């Protein structure tokens, strides 16, 4: 590690809580707090977990009006951006010319007065620089990318998240899934979106860096809230069947293969007009040769990222992209890619772990029912 690691505005808060800090995407981030990954995972499934995700890339696509900005953004992503309602957020991907995924991202239509031409975008920490370069290269004259400097992002996730947040801002309870509201939390201006990465109901709170520590402390006072590190963030998202860039998604993988066609509206599939459209349209019509699937080993041994998947005759049919232990499932779980002929739920496969073939089955995703607010 030659380059200096960056710190989020909550670095001191993590240190004070006794977090184990590790390098992640160029930042010094908490992987776990003293109670450990299992306890943090289970707490989030039952109560409310507070995550520092300030390392993620917050930025804005800025144009003169929503129509112009959303049309420009539709060149870059396959989702329906023009059809976003004010306050609404969508999940999408940046694609390369070959239809491979450069990153996945969240896009929100701003409705702040005098900011109607702005889209609020959140990208992965590890992809910030290439994403920003790619976006800037493909925006037309008059539309610009503005980096969100001095911003922090907190996530409050879990079935009790709403109970915690509505004590500060009653309007949080009325917020619909994948929509934001501008909330005042003890004088802190927070852009609060009902979304997350845990499979549970919850919120992401975007605030100015100067307010991040105070907001963290305010939320931490509630007995329902505990701090959660990146370790549990990963086991939570894996159980929820959610993709992680660099694992399920990369520049060779299409949204179709990744099972993300649900995020591409019919109009966009039919009309194309976005970078990478020809592959998306072709695979939509003809199908894919490999697919993202869930996998459950029959035994107790976890199979990690990179594990070879074989059919029962011993031929390689795929590879695991994320694998570990699911605390809520109480057993090993994984996601990966297999040839389409082996992607049906219930198909028996073998995982090659330390030279041994461990029996496993293709399993329906998510591993646990999603508890998003509908």
């Amino acid at each position, binding site marked *: 590690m030659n380059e200096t690691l960056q710190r989020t505005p909550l670095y001191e808060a993590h240190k004070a809580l006794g977090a184990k800090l590790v390098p992640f995407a160029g930042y010094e981030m908490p992987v776990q707090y003293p109670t*450990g*990954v299992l306890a943090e995972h289970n707490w989030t499934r039952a109560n409310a977990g507070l995550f520092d995700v300030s390392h993620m890339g917050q930025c804005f696509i800025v144009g003169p009006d929503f129509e112009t900005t959303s049309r420009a953004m539709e060149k870059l992503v396959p989702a329906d951006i023009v059809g976003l309602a004010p306050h609404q957020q969508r999940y999408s991907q940046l694609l390369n010319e070959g239809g491979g995924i450069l990153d996945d991202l969240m896009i929100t239509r701003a409705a702040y007065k005098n900011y109607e031409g702005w889209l609020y975008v959140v990208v992965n920490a590890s992809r910030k620089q290439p994403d920003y370069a790619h976006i800037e290269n493909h925006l037309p004259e008059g539309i610009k990318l503005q980096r969100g400097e001095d911003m922090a992002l907190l996530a409050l996730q879990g079935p009790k998240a709403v109970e915690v947040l509505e004590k500060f801002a009653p309007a949080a309870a009325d917020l619909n899934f994948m929509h934001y509201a501008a909330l005042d939390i003890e004088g802190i201006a927070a852009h609060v979106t009902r979304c997350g990465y845990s499979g549970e109901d919850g919120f992401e709170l975007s605030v100015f860096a100067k307010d991040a520590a105070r907001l963290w402390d305010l939320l931490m006072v509630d007995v329902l809230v505990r701090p959660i590190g990146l370790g549990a963030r990963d086991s939570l998202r894996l159980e929820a069947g959610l993709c992680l860039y660099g694992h399920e998604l990369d520049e060779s993988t299409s949204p179709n293969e990744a099972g993300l066609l649900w995020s591409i509206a019919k109009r966009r599939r039919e009309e194309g007009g976005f970078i990478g459209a020809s592959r998306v349209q072709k695979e939509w019509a003809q199908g894919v040769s490999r697919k993202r699937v869930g996998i459950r080993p029959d035994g107790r*041994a*976890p199979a990690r990222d990179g594990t070879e998947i074989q059919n029962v005759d011993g031929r390689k049919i795929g590879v695991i992209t994320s694998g570990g*232990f699911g605390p809520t499932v109480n057993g090993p779980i994984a996601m990966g890619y297999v040839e389409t002929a082996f992607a049906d739920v219930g198909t028996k496969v073998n995982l090659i772990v330390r030279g041994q073939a461990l029996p496993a089955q293709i399993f329906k995703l998510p591993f646990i029912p999603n508890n998003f607010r509908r």
Partner: protein
Amino acid sequence: MNKVFSKDHEWVTVEGDVATIGITNHAQEQLGDVVFVELPKIGANVVCDASIAVVESVKAASEIYVPVSGEIVAINNELTGDPALVNRDAEGEAWFFKVKLAKPDELAKLMDKAAYDKFVG
């Protein structure tokens, strides 16, 4: 004989010509929540510094290196059903395996507690 320690974070106690081996409390703290343990087979002949067991936490898999040579004469089957025992009592109930020593002088290179504490300090 007092407990001695390897640079790979195993502890060893010896009674007669049989060594009992587990992972140190420091190692279990570094690993985090243990969810799976794979043990060697009884009767296997192992050589010093070979990887002969695996411990998996929520986060990652780690190999366990045997710090002595000999024959595996016992394994702790408790760990298979209750891997979290490693977190609760790493240097006691959560021993991994017992080795009948083939080369007792290999013990000489292991550290005493003071040296190990300094090693991880």
